[in-house]
């Protein structure tokens, strides 16, 4: 067996060698695209989220290719890969992407998936220093990814959960009406973090605010939120903080509305896919969200280019809206990092991304060296009726959009990190 094994091993090496030689030959050509693996659910229950992200990626790549000649004159190509929202499947796909010579993988939905990818990429780069890869995270916001479990090969372009909570609690600090807060979250790490941070930060910033109740519900399984609504009502809360997303948020707000519950919802994902359409005008004035961007921000701020960008997207995908402004930031910063050294080698790119401070059309974006967390201006907005003026754009053709109520400068969002980054040799 050992003989056979050796032979097999030799053969593999030979084959791999040839393949490597070939790929080296082909990468030398200028027209060869820079490929980014897009690892998201494209089938199964979460496919809608993955699909919308893919629209964003393709739209951004196409426009950068058209308007900026891609990266170093090479076009960007998005390689979609379906992970079915499974961490282990994603780990396999990272492997497959690397096999195909892809150097950049991107993902955002699900911190559990993100954790698996960080682990896989980290391990792979350690074991195969000759074929490294870089992980660009555009939406997974678990603080651990830039703290205890941080990795040199991971960059996060969305604000992590604690940053969002810090901004949200800053805003609530100024709201005199907020007296009694109820915490309703999904029973998994994201929900746990939101609940814990909300408690900690509110206690710090508004000791007079009372947390009148806290509940964790199973993720994605509750169809009828009425029991929760009755709990909220009995607690006498005037505000609810929730990290819920998707159906868990939609159903919550619809139920609150039909039961006539009069509270404000402070959310992470109030403008997320499917929510505005399902909530409709029931969220006007009561549904708040914390994001780095929303579709009426360019109107309010007078960013014409940015507005043109989102209108362009809407023309191409009338059924969805431009939502992930950070995808644009991510691509542009990647472009800058690659072009700085004219190298796509993940190590060079990572070194250039670290500490990068980039002026985007929507303000400064800064990547902290310590933990590879992006910092950018954050906005709190509230659902409002489309009025053609400040609330010019609605979301998901629902007749309601978002209006900014507060801005937090990126300098104010910087939080300490426990990351002890292992640098590559």
């Amino acid at each position: 067996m050992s003989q056979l094994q050796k032979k097999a091993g030799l053969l593999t090496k030979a084959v791999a060698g040839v393949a490597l030689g070939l790929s080296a030959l082909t990468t030398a050509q200028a027209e060869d695209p820079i490929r980014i693996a897009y690892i998201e659910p494209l089938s199964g229950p979460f496919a809608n989220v993955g699909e919308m992200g893919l629209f964003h990626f393709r739209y951004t790549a196409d426009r950068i290719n058209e308007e900026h000649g891609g990266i170093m004159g090479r076009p960007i190509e998005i390689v979609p890969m379906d992970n079915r929202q499974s961490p282990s499947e994603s780990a396999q796909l990272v492997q497959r992407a690397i096999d195909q010579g892809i150097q950049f993988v991107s993902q955002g939905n699900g911190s559990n998936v993100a954790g698996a990818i960080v682990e896989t990429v980290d391990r792979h780069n350690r074991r195969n220093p000759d074929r490294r890869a870089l992980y660009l995270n555009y939406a997974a916001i678990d603080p651990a990814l830039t703290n205890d479990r941080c990795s040199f090969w991971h960059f996060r372009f969305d604000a992590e959960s604690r940053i969002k909570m810090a901004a949200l609690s800053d805003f609530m600090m100024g709201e005199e009406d907020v007296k009694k807060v109820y915490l309703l979250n999904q029973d998994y790490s994201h929900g746990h973090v939101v609940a814990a941070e909300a408690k900690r930060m509110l206690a710090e910033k508004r000791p007079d605010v009372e947390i009148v109740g806290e509940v964790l519900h199973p993720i994605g399984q509750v169809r009828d939120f009425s029991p929760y609504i009755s709990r909220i009502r009995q607690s006498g809360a005037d505000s609810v903080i929730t990290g819920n997303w998707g159906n868990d948020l939609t159903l919550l707000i619809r139920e609150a509305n039909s039961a006539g519950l009069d509270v404000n919802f402070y959310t992470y994902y109030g403008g997320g896919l499917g929510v505005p359409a399902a909530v409709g005008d029931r969220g006007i004035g009561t549904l708040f969200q914390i994001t780095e961007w929303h579709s009426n921000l360019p109107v309010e701020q007078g960013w014409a280019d940015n507005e043109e960008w989102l209108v362009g997207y809407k023309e191409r995908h009338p059924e969805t809206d431009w939502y992930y402004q950070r995808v644009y930031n991510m691509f542009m910063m990647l472009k800058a990092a690659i072009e700085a050294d004219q190298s796509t080698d993940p190590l060079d790119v990572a070194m250039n991304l670290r500490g990068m401070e980039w002026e985007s059309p929507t303000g400064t974006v800064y990547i902290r060296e310590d933990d590879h967390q992006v910092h950018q201006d954050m906005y709190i907005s509230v659902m409002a009726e489309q009025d053609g003026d400040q609330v010019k754009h609605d979301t998901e053709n629902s007749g309601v959009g978002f209006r900014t109520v507060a801005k937090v400068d990126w300098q104010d969002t910087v939080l300490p990190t426990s990351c002890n980054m292992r640098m590559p040799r």
Partner: protein
Amino acid sequence: MLETITYSLLNGLLYGMLLFMLSSGLTLIFGMMGVLNFAHASFYMLGAYFAYTLGMYTGFWVALFLAPILVGALGAMTERWGLRHVHQHGHVPELLFTFGLAYVIEELVRLFYGTLPMNYRMPEGLDFTLFTVFGTSYPAFRAFILVVAVVMFVGLYLLLKKTRAGLIIQGSLSRPDIVAALGHNVPQVFMWVFAFGTALAALGGVVGGIHFVTEPGMAFMMGPIVFVVVVLGGLGSIPGALIASMIIGILQTFTLSVDFSIAHVGAWFGYAVPPDHLFATLWYLDSTRIAPVLPFLILVLTLIFRPRGIMGKREA
């Protein structure tokens, strides 16, 4: 406290009635054909989607009747061209067939409707508040769901007790062999029962799709819990299904509405487990977090201790 009980009863009643609409068809099919129809919740989903599509052309009220009929026709075809063919190989392949069918239906719904939730709303006429208790308004549509469910139960009961077709069905629930011996065309009876059962599920879908969300995952969400109801109620027993639906509906609502854990019981006796104890997680487990486990626990316990359920005549 009174508030909690009132809300929980009202909400639990509604949830239970929706469960009943799904499980009554399944219990008929299960009790009579012995087929554990995994795709039953998929027909419920089809009911919601069909009603949504039809509703755009005909309005809600026509769709309320048309969608179940369409789904029932699909059910009949499923029995005629699928199940009947598999029947000769025994019960396991039948079960597996419906298992595969659930897969395919979900994927087809995704293909035609996409993965986003549908904007399936209640008719304007029912969009008002019926009454208000303790400051919580009770929407009229919920009362409508209750009415539909009660009408369905009464209709079903009369059908089974008072009509010839009902007698045949009842007969085959207890002794399928005798019905065949009496010269009835059993395959045809099966087909009608399957069509009827799926149509009932679809009716549940028409109203459930509005109350909950109409999306491709809705079948998978409901599937296991409907089994629990059917097993707890007893195979083939419509009243059993009703009672079990109520029990599950109210129980689930209560566990969600109250804040409770074993630690509370311990506290009455002045005992507490230290937080770093091996069983601390279990000890301090909140009742809302037990809620999703509860149906499965009931399922397992029922099957172990009373396999014929509350009202069933035969064992599963």
